[in-house]
């Protein structure tokens, strides 16, 4: 290894996250104390523990600091246009239902410009996992207010403080039909790992919100300290309430952060519904999608 490490005795060891990264792209662009990298560690461990065939796992991101995750992961990855990862991932999943599709993006990308795709993917119950790293603003473009910026946090586009009503993301996902909904903060690394593992195993739309520090824009502009102080804040102000009614988990500025698994239920996926309807309408001639090379599926 050409990189300078403190490695001393014994055989060289490998960081368990390394096989999941495109090492040639490291070091990454994220700021000191940014929480996005921490979530990537959890995702890597969840993939290891899930024992998935990595050739069948795809990761899709939109644009933003969190959107960089797709480009840094050593998986089949697609970095889509801003707001469109869920739309792209829907097509990917339906074209190849054998894939495990994960959307990994920011609050602005998924819930502001991409909000329409998100609600419809939940409604249709597309079989995919959506991870939203919520840092309460648009990080990449300089810290503009997003649909999750709480009143009265200041941002570059809300110099007197944000005042709009915010999205309560677990409630949004729940009410639109997602079958698995959880929220954690970047302090909860073990819980995020477990949630990601459960989400990967869940059939249907699973959604995980991860509250994450943006020390460069959100924390600094609001005089909330650095990334470490944000992490300590999460540690001291998170309340774990698994099974909580999602209507009651709204996040207020510097208030308590309710974490946990809120929803875990069964509901037919889009593809199940598609096959059920066609089978009912067409009858015995209909072979359910996906149509395989061995002749299964399709209309005879």
């Amino acid at each position: 290894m050409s990189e300078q490490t403190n490695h001393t005795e014994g055989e060289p060891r490998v960081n368990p996250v390394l096989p999941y990264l495109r090492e040639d792209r490291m070091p990454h662009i994220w700021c000191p104390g940014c929480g996005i990298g921490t979530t990537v560690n959890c995702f890597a461990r969840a993939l290891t523990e899930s024992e998935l065939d990595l050739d069948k796992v795809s990761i899709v991101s939109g644009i933003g600091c969190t959107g960089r995750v797709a480009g840094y992961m050593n998986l089949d990855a697609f970095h889509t246009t801003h707001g469109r990862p869920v739309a792209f991932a829907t097509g990917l999943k339906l074209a190849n239902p054998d894939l495990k599709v994960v959307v990994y993006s920011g609050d602005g990308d998924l819930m502001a410009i991409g909000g329409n795709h998100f609600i419809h993917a939940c409604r249709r119950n597309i079989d995919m996992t959506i991870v939203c790293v919520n840092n309460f603003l648009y990080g990449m473009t300089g810290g503009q207010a997003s649909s999750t910026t709480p009143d009265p946090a200041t941002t570059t586009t809300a110099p007197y403080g944000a005042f709009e009503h915010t999205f309560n993301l677990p409630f949004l996902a729940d009410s639109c039909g997602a079958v698995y909904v959880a929220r954690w903060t970047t302090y909860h690394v073990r819980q995020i790992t477990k949630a990601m593992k459960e989400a990967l195993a869940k059939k249907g739309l699973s959604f995980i919100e991860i509250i994450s520090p943006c020390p460069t824009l959100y924390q600094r502009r609001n005089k909330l300290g650095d990334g470490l102080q944000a992490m300590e804040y999460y540690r001291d102000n998170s309340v774990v309430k698994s099974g909580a009614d999602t209507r009651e988990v709204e996040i207020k500025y510097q208030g308590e952060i309710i974490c946990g698994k809120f929803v875990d239920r069964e509901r037919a996926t889009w593809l199940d519904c598609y096959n059920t309807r066609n089978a009912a309408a067409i009858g015995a001639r209909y072979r359910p999608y996906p149509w395989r090379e061995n002749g299964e599926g399709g209309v005879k």
Partner: protein
Amino acid sequence: MSEALAKKRKIQKYLGNVEVKIEHCKGCGFCVEFCPTGALELSKSFNKKGYHPPMLVDQNYCNGCDLCGLYCPDFAIFGFRVGPNPNFKKDEKAK
């Protein structure tokens, strides 16, 4: 902060170690603060970008749990287990 860290320190039954990619560290302190046994501190020296990378205070405190690795947003540190700690004495448990 350092007092709270010192309180967590005790000689571990199993010995671990950490490997630090010094030039990738951005000195955020997550690993130091959230190591369950307070085994790390930021070193006085700088890397090329001007950050203080972490180092073990004393290997006896590290059990190789790799929580530092799970926290590090820069993939710059990870912990691993080496084996039973010869310096561990049974009565340490009581502490």
